[in-house]
């Protein structure tokens, strides 16, 4: 279903209200390059059955967004997992390929907010057809590009894909309340909270097909500077042909997990942004 940009930007909610249920009833057989095999049976629009040879059958809640008619962005927080695990899949029916991102919170016990992510590539088995030879993979296509992303909350930021490994973000709006801003400034003044440095975080860009990419960013530097903040793993598929992205958050708000699906409209920009060329404070 096409989403009207003007209407969407008026909604003012952080997460999209409804995810896509068109996977309901579908079955996918995944052959991962590290040797793992999975059968995914989407029982309903929000329950998926996971099977792997010799492994237990799992039923997990999931959400799905559709970056295009043949591509599904699926995310699922696995139940009863410690550390907390979020599995994100890009199911690419057009090319019979799959990318799986396994994100964990609490992998490093002393930095419980910090997510780590592993990417795994593979193919979707199709009866009577050999597995495809090529794979999704990391890409340099986005390096040097800048996009202004407009979220439905009225939140706007510029993402700068400065290298294949690091992303910089400039917020153009501040979603904090005046009280929150005042409190934070006071805490910084009193030395209770360090001042945040420039937003540069480790990232990954994976090419799904021409014009479509999976992007991932972990707020690791933010969390290193202030262990009560950041650590979030933001992940989304950007469809530059449509000028929008579809993603999910995997972060903490206090002691609570913050996981939901979002969408944003994006416009490439050539505007000169000083942050883009500022020397990094984090790396030698």
């Amino acid at each position, binding site marked *: 279903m096409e989403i009207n940009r003007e209407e969407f930007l008026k909604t003012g909610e952080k997460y999209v209200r409804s995810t896509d249920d068109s996977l309901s009833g579908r079955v996918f057989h995944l052959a991962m390059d590290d040797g793992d095999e999975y059968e995914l049976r989407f029982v309903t629009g929000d329950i998926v059955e996971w099977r792997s040879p010799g492994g237990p059958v799992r039923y997990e809640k999931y959400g799905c967004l559709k970056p295009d008619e043949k591509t599904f962005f699926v995310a699922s927080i696995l139940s009863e997992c410690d550390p907390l695990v979020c599995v994100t899949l890009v199911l690419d029916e057009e090319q019979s390929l799959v990318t799986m991102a396994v994100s964990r919170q609490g992998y490093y016990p002393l930095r419980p907010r910090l997510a780590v992510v*592993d990417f795994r590539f593979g193919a979707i088995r199709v009866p009577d057809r050999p597995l495809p030879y090529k794979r999704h993979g990391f890409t340099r296509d986005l390096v040097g590009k800048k996009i202004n992303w407009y979220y439905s909350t009225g939140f706007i930021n510029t993402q700068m894909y400065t290298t294949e490994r690091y992303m910089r973000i400039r917020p153009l709006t501040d979603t904090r309340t005046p009280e929150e801003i005042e409190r934070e400034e006071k805490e910084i003044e009193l030395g209770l909270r360090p001042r945040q440095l420039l937003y540069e975080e480790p990232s990954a860009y994976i090419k799904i097909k021409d014009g479509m990419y999976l992007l991932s960013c972990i707020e690791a530097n933010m969390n290193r500077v202030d262990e009560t903040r950041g650590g979030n793993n933001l992940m989304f598929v950007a469809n530059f042909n449509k000028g929008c992205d579809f993603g999910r958050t995997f972060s903490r708000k206090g002691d609570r997990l913050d996981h939901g699906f979002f969408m944003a409209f994006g416009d490439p920009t050539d505007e000169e942004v000083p942050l883009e060329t500022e020397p990094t404070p984090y*790396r*030698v």
Partner: protein
Amino acid sequence: MKKRIAVVGADNSLGRRVAREAYHRGYAVTAVVRDQSLLDSVKYSVRESADYSVEEDEFDAVIDVTGKVIKITKGDMVSSVCPAESIDADGRRTGQVRLSDKRETYVSEEDLALAVVDVTDSDGQMDVFAGSDPAPDLPEENSGRRRYVAVSDKGIAGKVFELVMDSLQEYVIRFLTDNTMIIAEKGKTYREYSCDCFRCDDDVWMVIYMKDGECVTLILDEGQDLVTEVLAELMPKRTQLVRHRILFGALRRKDKELPFRRHAFTDELVGQKITWHYSPYVNITHCFYTEMYMRNSLRSMKPVPDDAAPEARFDAEDRIRRWSNIFFEEPAQYIRFNPHLYMMCMREATRNRIDPLQGGGDMVLVINTRRMRDYGRGFSRGKGAPGYDLVSVCGDWDDLPDPMDTAESPYLV
């Protein structure tokens, strides 16, 4: 913007080396030559001039290597480098060139080129003599047929390091000997391990050890008080396939604050190639294709000498037959330690995907571009238990075009 530099006489042996060194340190190089066909790189602008004339105002620096003394002009400031009495055109690069006020007896041409670019890099005016020691002979093992043979360096015995990783876990490592260490996480008991160490730079150590079936590589950077850990483990299903986890951190020093900056991933090597000379018969070119992949090829194999043993000849010819028309493209990560020291962590995942019985192992190499030498290990399941082999070989920048520089990936959409 890159600084512009002209190398006058870049068509002679020393000039070629100076131009190459300057280019790989980030200068935009213009080679001023009489005969363009004598250049060994396509990375520079070229000006042909019968009398080597050049407009100095066009450049930030002009290096003239046509005389006995090398002249470096930067605006109104002229510096000079006087080589040692004996210039060894075949001598290996040591990276340890001396700049002094007395004429030296020996310098290799490779190290002389380093000295010239060092003086060009410096801010002040200098008139210096350049000298170096002859490079030691390669260990016997490195000149043989086997690829992964090296001996670890001495000198780490007695050192103690306190590691504060970015996971906030803290460790203490004590080196009892050059090949034995004990390590303890804060508040826990020490465990002893056998280890191998390379001194990759004057103050950077690479330490390798096996821990519960995993291969741990530590870069202990005493110069910047930083540490990088690479943990390599084998996958449960594809049991030959290695996976990496990389963690950064700092070294705690008495009465010093922990540094804020870290070693980190880099794009500085992207687009460059180094040919590594593993043995007289095996040369492998690494093409640092992107920040996430490397390509390698065995195309630049040296000719097999006439007196080579039949077994060596067969091995070399067989490799060329099998490899001559292909390159591999494997996932890789590149980390920068300082302006001439990098690490590449590569794993043979593509080879292993195509044939589960092939590849899967990894190479973790520290690349010292000043010494043009690498230090590292390959980790794999091998025929028995998982283990690593040390490797440390010399290399050369490869600035000539190769199909793998630009070929479309056969493995990725």
